C-alpha cells in the first residue's frame, strides 16, 4: 500500500515533489493564489503530510488555471501544474465531494460536447452546463449579443469520422 505522497509521485512521473525546498516561488507567481483555499506550496506540504481528503476535496485543485507559471519558475523542476492535473484525476476517481462543483460540471459538459460531435458546439455545451449547474440566467445578455453578431451558431460542422472519436473516449475511459 502506497502513501499519498508515493501515489501522487507515481502517477505524475518526473521529479518527485519532495524535491521542493519550499521557497514559495510557485505561490508568489500564481495568478489565482489570492482566491485559493490553500496556496500551491501549501498543497505540496499537505501531500507530504498525507492529508489526502483535505487536498482532494479542496477548491485549490479546481481553481488552478493551468497557466504553468509555477513549473516554469520552480528552481527544482517540480511539475506543479501536472501535480494539479493528477490531483484532479484522483479526486474524480475517489468520488470525493469536489471543492468547486461548477468547474467540474463545466469540464463534464465540455467533454461530452466533444464526445457527441467531435468538435465543441458552444451553444450545446453552454445549455448542457447551465442545466447541470441550474445557473440559468448569468451571461444571458452576453450570449444573446454574441448570437446576434453571428458568433454563436446553432448548427456547426462536426467531425465526420465519429467512430474514431468515440473509440478515443472509450479507450481512455476509467
Amino acid at each position, binding site marked *: 500500500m502506497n502513501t499519498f505522497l508515493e501515489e501522487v509521485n507515481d502517477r505524475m512521473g518526473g521529479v518527485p515533489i519532495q524535491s521542493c525546498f519550499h521557497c514559495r516561488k510557485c505561490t508568489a507567481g500564481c495568478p489565482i493564489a489570492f482566491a485559493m483555499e490553500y496556496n500551491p506550496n501549501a498543497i505540496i506540504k499537505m501531500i507530504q503530510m498525507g492529508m489526502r481528503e483535505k487536498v482532494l476535496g479542496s477548491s485549490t485543485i479546481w481553481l488552478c488555471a493551468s497557466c504553468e507559471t509555477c513549473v516554469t519558475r520552480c528552481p527544482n523542476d517540480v511539475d506543479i501544474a501536472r501535480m494539479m492535473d493528477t490531483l484532479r484525476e484522483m479526486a474524480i476517481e475517489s468520488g470525493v465531494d469536489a471543492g468547486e462543483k461548477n468547474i467540474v460540471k463545466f469540464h463534464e459538459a465540455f*467533454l461530452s460536447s466533444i464526445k457527441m460531435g467531435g468538435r465543441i458546439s458552444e451553444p450545446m455545451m453552454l445549455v448542457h452546463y447551465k442545466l447541470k449547474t441550474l445557473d440559468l440566467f448569468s451571461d444571458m445578455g452576453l450570449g444573446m449579443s454574441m448570437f446576434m453578431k453571428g458568433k454563436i*451558431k446553432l448548427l456547426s460542422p462536426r467531425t465526420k469520422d465519429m467512430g474514431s472519436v468515440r473509440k478515443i473516449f472509450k479507450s481512455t475511459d476509467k
Partner: protein
Amino acid sequence: MKVSYYPGCSLHATGKEYDQSVKAVSDALGIELKEVDDWSCCGASSAHMTNFKLSIALPARNIIAAQNDKLDMMVPCAACFNRFKGAQHHLEKDDSLKAEIEEIVGAKYDASVAVRNPIDIIYNDIGLEELGKAVTRKLDGLKPVSYYGCLLLRPPEVCQFDDYENPYMMDGIMGALGADARKWSCKTDCCGGSLTLGKTQIVVHLVDKMMMMAAEAGANCIVTACPVCFANLDTRASEKGRLPAFYFTEIMALALGLKGTEKWFNMHNVDPKPLLTSLGLI
C-alpha cells in the same frame, strides 16, 4: 509557402474573426493554407485537467491526420497550440505511451509535423522586412500592448516559442505595421482562462488589473493571439477603463489594407471603431 491549417473549435465560433483574419493575412502574404482533414477538438483544458490519456489521444488524432500533408501545421489558437505541443512532448519521450496512443488512434505517430503558431511563421518565415513592404496604411497613433497569456509560452521546454518571460515577436510585428507597441509587465500573465464560466469573478479581477496596467503603460488597445484571452478581455473587463482588444491578425489586415476588417470589428463586444475612427485608421 504552404502549411496545413488547424482552426480548432473556437475559431469556428466565438473566435470567428481570428479565423477570418488569419486567412486574409495568410493570403496577402503568400501563405497557402490546407485545412487538416476531418479534424476534431484538441480536448483543451477540460481533457488535461481530468484525464491525461484523453488529453494526449485527442491532439494525437489530429497531428496524425496532418502527417499525410507533409507540411508544417499552423495552429492560431494558443490553447490548441499548447495541447499539440504538450502531446508531442509526451509522445516523443515515452515509448510505451506512444504505442498505447497509436493503438487507440489506429495509426502511427511519426514525429514529422512541426506545430507552429502564425506569430512564429510571420516573424521568422515571412520576416519583418517583407511584412513592412506589404503595409499600405501605417498604423500611426495605435498604441497596443502585446498580450501573449500562458499557452503559447509555458512550459518553455515544451512550447519552444519566443522568450518566455519577455516575449518580443508580437511587438516586432506591431512595429513593422507602424504601431507604437508599448512596454508593459503583463505580457505573459494569466487571464483565468476557462474559469470564465465557473468562477467569473476571478477572471473579472484578473482582466481589470491588466486593463489598468495597459492604460498606465500608455496603451490604447490590447493585442492577443488567443481566443480564450480575447473573449475574457473583450467580455469580462468592467466597463470603466476597459480598452478594446484585437487579434493581432485583425491589426495586420488593417495595415495591409485588406477587406473584411469592419465586419470583424462589428463582432467585438467592446466596439473598437471609435478608437480607430479617431486615429483616422478606418
